[in-house]
């Protein structure tokens, strides 16, 4: 069985699971308790951090895919790296959009150049540049190797992004990282369901993008063979 068929076989049950989880997610977010300080706007909690985790995961997939490609030389790993970067950038873009919506309602302004927001923007630019590098180049082994190294180096920004509030001694408008017990009563389950739903959505999209990348390579090879004969 080819790798395309394997990806497709894994992806289809995930689509069904995602459909069910989306309904559960909507119900638990609507029924989640309203925060006594922030009010209803605090419900953005159930979408903004899960998007951030999805973005981190996407860029980690890119780093792992790049490392495996450099080590084993299999094109499939390079395609996995591309899928991780693209889905990671989509999640990171949504994190950057939903964050200011929440900030406008609580801080009174859309953006603040505080450490967490600045490093997040840097992370977004790094992987946007990765995708531009891939789309503007001819492809081939040299590009894949360069992209592999670049993708691995970009991962360094993830722990920096996560711990930047502690590094700057909490001189940040952004709240501290969530810890066990830091959520209000009744908010733990909705947060867990939100993370699970967006994680399944992330995996589904990575598998679909990986499959597309694989088909694109096959189509390119077919076209090249057609021109050569």
């Amino acid at each position: 069985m080819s790798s395309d068929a394997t990806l497709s076989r894994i992806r289809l049950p995930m689509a069904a699971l995602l459909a069910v989880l989306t309904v559960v997610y909507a119900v638990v977010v609507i029924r989640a308790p309203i925060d006594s300080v922030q009010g209803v706007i605090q419900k953005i909690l159930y979408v903004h951090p899960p998007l951030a985790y999805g973005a981190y995961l996407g860029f980690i997939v890119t780093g792992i895919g790049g490392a495996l490609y450099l080590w084993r030389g299999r094109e499939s790993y390079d395609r996995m790296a591309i899928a991780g970067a693209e889905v990671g950038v989509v999640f990171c873009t949504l994190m950057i959009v939903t964050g200011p919506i929440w900030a406008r309602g609580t801080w009174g302004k859309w953006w603040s150049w505080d450490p967490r927001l600045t490093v997040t923007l840097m992370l977004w630019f790094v992987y946007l540049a990765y995708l531009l590098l891939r789309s503007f180049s001819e492809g081939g082994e040299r590009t894949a190797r360069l992209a592999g190294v670049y993708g691995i180096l970009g991962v360094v920004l993830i722990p920096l992004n996560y711990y930047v509030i502690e590094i700057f001694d909490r001189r940040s408008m952004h709240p501290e990282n969530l810890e066990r017990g830091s959520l209000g009563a009744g908010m733990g389950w909705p947060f867990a369901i939100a993370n699970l739903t967006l994680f399944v959505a992330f995996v589904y999209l990575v598998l679909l993008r990986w499959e597309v990348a694989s088909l694109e390579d096959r189509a390119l090879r077919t076209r090249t063979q057609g021109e050569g004969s």
Partner: protein
Amino acid sequence: MSYVIAAYGVTVVTLVVYALLLEARRRALERELRPPGGGPQDPTRA
């Protein structure tokens, strides 16, 4: 409330549109790779 709707709305619409675009691209590529006259797309996938 409008901020909450905006945050969830932009997320759901973006993810759904992105998934649909990928699915359309996947189907177009499968059509392109399908040999003329039907049959399996690829002997290795049979």
